[in-house]
């Protein structure tokens, strides 16, 4: 069994918590006693944070829409199709015909990369996220 110190994803408090890992599965969480925000406390969401990680509802394979149905495909096909579609839109209607939504649940590094992708790769400032919502 291992315990990995990480940061809770449920609100702006940012509690420090340990994820308990057994045989490659996350099976529990507990608060960090010395973390400056949580100080040995978690709310009910933090105590049960491990429950969604292995949910059978998780997406586990890339999907592409075919005849109104999403079907499983391999990564290369999903990525190629996306890149081609974005390139075609940019070519046909200009970079500002594309919009991107980033996420207040993703990491700083991921948010940084998506806005870099938007501005440097696609050439549009049409990037936002739900800070307002």
């Amino acid at each position, binding site marked *: 069994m291992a315990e990995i110190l990480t940061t809770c*994803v449920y609100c702006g*408090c940012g509690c420090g918590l340990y994820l308990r890992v057994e045989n490659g599965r996350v099976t529990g969480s507990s608060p960090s006693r010395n973390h400056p*925000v949580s100080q040995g406390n978690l709310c009910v969401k933090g105590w049960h944070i491990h429950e969604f990680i292995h949910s059978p509802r*998780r997406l586990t394979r890339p999907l592409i829409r075919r005849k109104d149905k999403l079907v499983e495909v391999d990564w290369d096909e999903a990525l190629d199709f996306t890149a081609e579609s*974005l390139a075609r839109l940019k070519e046909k209607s200009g970079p500002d015909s594309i919009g991107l939504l980033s996420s207040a649940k993703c990491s700083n590094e991921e948010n940084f990369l998506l806005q870099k992708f938007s*501005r440097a790769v696609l050439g549009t400032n049409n990037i936002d*996220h739900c800070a307002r919502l």
Partner: protein
Amino acid sequence: MAGLATTFGSGAMTNSIEEIGRADVILVIGSNTTEAHPQVARRIFSALDRGSRLIVIDPRRTALARRADIHLQHRPGTDIPLLNCLMRLILDDNLHDDVFIEHRTENFNELRDMLYRLDPTEKAAVANVPPAQLKKAAELYGRANKAVICYCLGITQHICGTDNVQTIANLAMLTGNVEKEDTGVDPLRGQNNVQGACDMGALPGVFPGYQAVSNEAVRAEFSGAWGRDLPAEPGLTILDMTHGGGKTVKGMFIMGENPLLSDPTLEKVRNTLENLEFLAVSDIFPTETAELAHVVFPAASFAEKTGTFTNSERRVQMVRRAIEPIGECRTDSDIICALARRLGYEMNYESSAEIMEEIALLTPVYGGMYHDRLESSWGLQWPCFNRSHPGTVFLHKYNFARGRGCFVPAAHQMPGEQPDEEYPFLLMTGRVYHHYHTGAMTRAGNILNRESPEALLEINPVDAESLTLASGEMLNLATRRGTIKIRALISEQVAPGMLYTSFHFTEAPINLLTNAASDPKAKCPEYKICAAQLEKIN
């Protein structure tokens, strides 16, 4: 955030969460703190245990309001007249801080003139609050040695959200309760990394670190680092895109968001997403939005990746990979880099630590944020300008980020919609303790779902009686935009004429009903107020 940026020069919580527990007087407005920010509520309770005083301004009698010394249960959408009235009473009692105003602020005369012109009794009536209570609150806050104001989306999700925030800032500056330790103005951020997403420039008008895309020197720097010419015009905001009907943008890439449950007036969002020529979604669950996509990428969850989040008190902290991505999931970083390479742009990083190095180089307030430093500490609070900078516990020490704090007076604005004969109730929306945002994560867990399995509509006993309604009965709840079915919860948390429910539940998608009227500056929609009618289902 536009509001605080104008008055103070920086749009973030000025304090650390720890400091809130040391204030003498805590004023909480538009925040259901015990349910949405439990750790902040804990600090407030420990301050109360030490003898600190609490003022809560909220249309609902929340758990925190029940513990308050003074609860001003005002009419939704009247924050500005109420706060202006408080400031006038503070001026009349000579409780303002002359020295602070003189040395640290500007534009005070304009605020003072406006306050002297208003009639406190009339404003108290507009807010529907007893004048004696207001006077008590003004004295308590005005006489405090160290006072902190906490606010949340109850302030920003209004047609006048920016003005609301600036009015709060006016109150803090009037009494000199900012720039010093244990005093300040604290927007509590709702989502775990909403601060970080803003800091990282996931906004249409700014690069990372709030550097304007329209500024030529800034653009030149990023252009040099990234090797491409960069667009100078600010882009479209989220509602411009999701309410555009497929005309403002024709294709979208949505990473980890679910606008088809979270955005107001959902019919418009659905119409837009269905009309897009191309929609790609990256998420951990098959959300309502993903169901409309042409391509869906399975993303790794927080337990399956390494990186950083920035919490509400500007603390940048590590998220660590606990397990390998499940199934064929990949991290969003991997997905973005793979797409960039296919589009002819080399985007290669060995690790998230290397991405952070690039962030530190291009973002002055993150200049000293390197993973090795964050690994060996409890994180660092921005601004942190270089490797030897210790980070910043509270903002604006000795000086506001913009130089002097600027008073920006504001007047009352009518909400985008008001109850009338046809739609007699005023509907507010928010969160509940057991769930988070659109519920994709929390509703996948057994315990949380057991505790809070469905959406409940809070209704006052007086209204319930006139509708001959019992708790647990089903209702049709309608606004001008749509109708949903929802279960009633009779509760004194809401005043007569008011209704409250949450937006976590796809079975009762409340945002079919909410009004998309939004603040012109911050583009924040008015989730907190719309007119509604009720009908019992027999």
